[in-house]
């Protein structure tokens, strides 16, 4: 296998999709739930991969802020922030697409890593720094990276404008209404939010086959693992990049809604934000030029449990969506710059 990837199997998938386009449709869904704890619970929902269901056994704690995440880690609990999940999804997708591109061209890879520098709301562009040591020379690798910028689904999603449909519903429940934790008030409402939008720098590194590790530089947290579904050649060890991207977006909306609902003193016993999106492999694989590679049909839904008024929930959910930084990244086109450092393996070590 080249780079731990079964190229024959990838080829078979590509050629299957040419005959059976319905096998190209991958519908991802995630859900982020608040049930009274300081952190949210994020779950990856079953995936509809072509014409079969794939169970996705991934659940994680999501902290609304880096401070809460660090506090959780200090108590031995692994918690991630919306920013971290979102950027891991972005970086993971770019890296996996690069890996596939280089492997398709039969370049053996020794090292592949990506650093993403995300200013998070400061009006600057996102920047990638890609490091690659492979059998390809610098121009050859750069050509692949150009292709990646055209065909990485999450990258394409961020550099294009997208619509996100929002639906809201309330479910009347009887029982205790949970006390929503008050966020610390600061002099300016925007200051608290902007404090969460500190620059985020993440390193994403290829581990083996299609598995990656991602970590926030200067964080005490453990690595985030990234994988792809079994049907795409992965081992189901971790969520895939689209799932991370959606988790980041959904938890960002959850974070904003929590704050708004707290200020409005909504009577809730819990709420759940779910997000879904469709990726058509025909686009990523360039099989049909009419099919966009990006994540399509993105939809966000919020379900509020308790005694809150539905129209009030709807208004707050819309405001949460509008305030969410990750949603802004999805809805408006971003500029993303890339720097590359491409080293060529010595000839005698090439296969």
């Amino acid at each position: 296998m080249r780079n731990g990837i079964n190229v024959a199997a990838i080829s078979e998938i590509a050629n299957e999709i040419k005959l059976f386009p319905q096998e190209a449709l991958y519908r991802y869904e995630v859900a982020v739930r608040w049930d009274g704890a300081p952190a949210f619970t994020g779950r990856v929902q079953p995936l509809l991969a072509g014409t079969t269901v794939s169970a996705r056994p991934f659940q994680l704690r999501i902290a609304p802020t880096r401070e809460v995440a660090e506090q959780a880690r200090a108590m031995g609990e692994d918690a991630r922030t919306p920013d971290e999940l979102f950027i891991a999804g972005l970086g993971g997708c770019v890296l996996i697409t690069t890996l596939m591109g280089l492997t398709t061209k039969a370049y053996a890879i020794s090292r592949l890593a990506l650093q993403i520098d995300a200013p998070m709301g400061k009006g600057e562009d996102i920047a990638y720094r890609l490091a690659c040591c492979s059998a390809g020379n610098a121009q050859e690798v750069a050509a692949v990276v150009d292709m990646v910028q055209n065909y990485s689904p999450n990258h394409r999603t961020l550099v294009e404008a997208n619509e996100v449909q929002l639906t809201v519903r309330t479910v009347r429940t009887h029982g205790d209404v949970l006390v929503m934790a008050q966020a610390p008030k600061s002099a300016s409402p925007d200051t608290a939010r902007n404090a969460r939008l500190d620059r985020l720098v993440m390193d994403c590194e290829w581990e083996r086959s299609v598995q990656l590790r991602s970590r926030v530089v200067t964080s005490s947290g453990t690595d985030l693992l990234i994988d792809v579904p079994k049907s795409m050649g992965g081992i189901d060890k971790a969520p895939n990049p689209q799932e991370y991207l959606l988790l980041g977006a959904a938890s960002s909306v959850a974070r904003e809604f929590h704050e708004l609902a707290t200020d409005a003193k909504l009577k809730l016993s819990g709420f759940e934000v779910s997000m879904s999106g469709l990726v058509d492999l025909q686009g990523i694989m360039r099989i049909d030029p009419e099919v966009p590679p990006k994540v399509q049909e993105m939809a966000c839904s919020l379900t509020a449990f308790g005694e809150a008024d539905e129209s009030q929930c709807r208004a707050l959910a819309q405001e949460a969506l509008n305030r969410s930084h990750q949603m802004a990244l999805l809805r408006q086109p971003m500029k993303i710059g890339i720097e590359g450092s491409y080293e060529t393996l010595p000839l005698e070590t090439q296969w």
Partner: protein
Amino acid sequence: MKLYSAFGFETDEKAAWLDELKRRRIDGPRLNSPVPDKANQSRDTVCVHAGTYTDPTTGAVGTPIFQTTTFRFGEQSYDAFMEGFTRDVPIYSRYGNPSQWAVQQKIAALEGAESTLLCASGMAAIATTLLALTSHDGHIISSNDVYGGSYNLLREDMHQWGRDVSFVDGTDIDAIEAAIKPTTQLFFFETLTNPLLKAIPLREIVALAHRRKILVVLDNTFLSPIFLRPLELGADIVIHSATKYLNGHSDVTAGVASGSRKYVDRIWAQMLKLGGSCDPLSSFLLERGLKTLHLRMRTHHANAMALAAALSCMPGVKTVHHPSIEGYRYPWVHDLCPDGQGGVVSFEVEGGDAGALNLLDKLRLPAVATSLGGVESLVSLPFNTSHNSLTQDQQRKIGIQPGLVRYSVGIEDAHDIITDIRNAMEAIQA
């Protein structure tokens, strides 16, 4: 890399992106064996000829036994490793051996499948398939009266591998649908159950599965591809304990999984890691046994029909379980399997389990032994063998009543079979 059109490659040209990768899935793996002319050849001819490998050097009519664990490497082998088509090239016998390929081709032709995988046993085929085609947290729906080995795997081990299993009445489509969850990935049922010969509503199950994007894996051991080909009706994978009818001579333990190349390749990849591959000698014997499958199944079926008819009016017999008996509760089996329903007859005798034990003591023709599907008749009592791990209440719940006898009818003379059991029944009533 050389052009490997035999392995699905259309061109050697380097691909610039994924759309330019050219390898397609192909049927197989395969040798230079005759491919059945499906339009013009009957299944009888396929049984004899499909998959049989003619050695070009000697002209041997039968497939040689490739009793080897490993094969010399060549450029093709290295390309197979690098590009990922190791299933199609002889490398190492756990990966694949020409003796396996010959019989796999034969079974694939009989089933109408793109690919077949031979495993060390029926249980190896079942376990490997279920693990390969589900994920951690995946949900499987199965029947509460599948074969005991399958039941134990599903009940005792699947949760340890992160799979969730629900057991339902496999003949009740509403119960099956009610059990579906968002994480349901796979249905696993037996087309004809052991030992009460209940038939699942196969067409409805496949239709339900397709609507809900669920894979259908069926154990068709009791019927063989002679009487039922589930893939033609929309199932995704069909499994056999080849130990039974496919081999037919009670001298090989093996299992097979057949289906699309896409899914069987996944099962193969799982088998590489679990290790349940079949040795060359057993592969040879299985291929040989399959050559007479069509003849044996017809005789098994005819003898079973005759025995069921005789038992239905034999003093001392309370109930007969066979699709030919009036009152059989699953009449759709005749639509699914118009040519025959296998060679097993189950019946209840008076005197409960003690009476049944007494009967076994008096029978002279069948061997009192577990297993089924061989040329020789075999008889056993489910309560103390295949369903021994269930309590009495659990046995009753799935319909196993006191005095139940399972008779695997061989291909002996029907008159001899019936005379023997009549004599035995008279002896126990005397």
